[in-house]
């Protein structure tokens, strides 16, 4: 039984970079195998424009967002259908978040933040389907999202406020002696933002999916008592559904916080 489970994974198990747990006996499901990026149509190496499983699920996420917003609101009914009310709820939710956290003048950037939220939420949710691939578990994907927010916000801050943007690092409410030390700390914490912003999303999604796979391995090893890990998987799956939404929410709300810093840099 255990052999059947690894039969699929064994072919690309060797490809998995830094596969540390190889050769151990007992657990035969490799929890990190689900994160291997591999080409969809061929066996060759992955190049710049190779269509991979990551590409497929990213495209599906975009398609899902488009379906929700374009097809869902096609009727423009006064009494909304179910899909339309989901689209309206999502719109109102993000709109209120931008207005509350970043202020009224940040609403110019609402389309970008809405795009981020829906894209991350959809790719997190689609990744919870069985046999799917989770694009947001790849640091490469989340780093693009996180660093684009960072660069956009920094450029915006300098364009809108000029050199006053540097006031973000000069804490004018602190005693004068402390200000240079605080400036160094503020500078470090500013440049660390995109790293924590992107690794938070990737780490949460990756850890959640790895835990699901580890418990699936327990179910294979326990035989008759496998109903215990299966019940646990059901619970963890519900938790992962919550995490998928909360991580999209946290990513967007932090984008709003960074945007607020760029629009009003006074400390």
């Amino acid at each position: 039984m255990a052999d059947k489970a690894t039969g699929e994974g064994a072919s690309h198990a060797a490809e998995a970079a830094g596969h540390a747990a190889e050769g151990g006996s007992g657990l035969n499901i490799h929890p990190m195998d689900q994160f291997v990026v591999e080409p969809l149509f061929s066996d060759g190496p992955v190049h710049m424009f190779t269509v991979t499983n990551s590409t497929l699920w990213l495209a599906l996420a975009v398609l899902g967002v488009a379906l929700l917003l374009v097809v869902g609101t096609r009727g423009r009914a006064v009494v909304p259908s179910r899909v339309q009310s989901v689209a309206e709820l999502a719109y109102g939710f993000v709109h209120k978040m931008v207005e509350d956290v970043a202020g009224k003048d940040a609403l110019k950037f609402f389309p970008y933040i809405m795009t981020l939220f829906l894209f991350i939420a959809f790719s997190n949710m689609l990744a919870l389907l069985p046999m799917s691939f989770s694009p947001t578990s790849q640091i490469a994907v989340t780093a693009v999202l996180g660093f684009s927010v960072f660069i956009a916000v920094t450029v915006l801050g300098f364009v809108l406020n000029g050199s006053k943007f540097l006031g973000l690092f000069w804490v004018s409410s602190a005693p004068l002696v402390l200000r240079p030390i605080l400036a160094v700390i503020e500078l470090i914490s500013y440049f660390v933002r995109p790293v924590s912003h992107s690794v938070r999303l990737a780490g949460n999604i990756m850890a959640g999916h790895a835990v699901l796979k580890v418990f699936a391995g327990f179910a294979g090893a326990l035989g008759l008592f496998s109903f215990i890990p299966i019940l646990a998987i059901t619970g963890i799956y519900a938790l992962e559904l919550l995490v998928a939404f909360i991580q999209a929410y946290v990513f967007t709300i932090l984008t709003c916080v960074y945007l607020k810093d760029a629009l009003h840099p006074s400390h």
Partner: protein
Amino acid sequence: MEGDIANLGQYIGAGLAGIGSGAAAIGVGNVAGNFLSGALRNPSAAAGQTATLFIGIAFAEALGIFSFLVALLLMFAV
């Protein structure tokens, strides 16, 4: 069992970095618990503060993420 002493140190270091995740868990629990104790005293003001709650959780979590990053670097990059 095979491998050299450098691998041993690498894995021990990665394991030690995992302690940071536990410390971040304490921090996140602190934020959420304090929010709840405040929210139960004044439930009408709680709804407007959920955004602050999540921002606080995110900042508390950030340093746990760095320990996770250190563990990842030790396992795969060093």
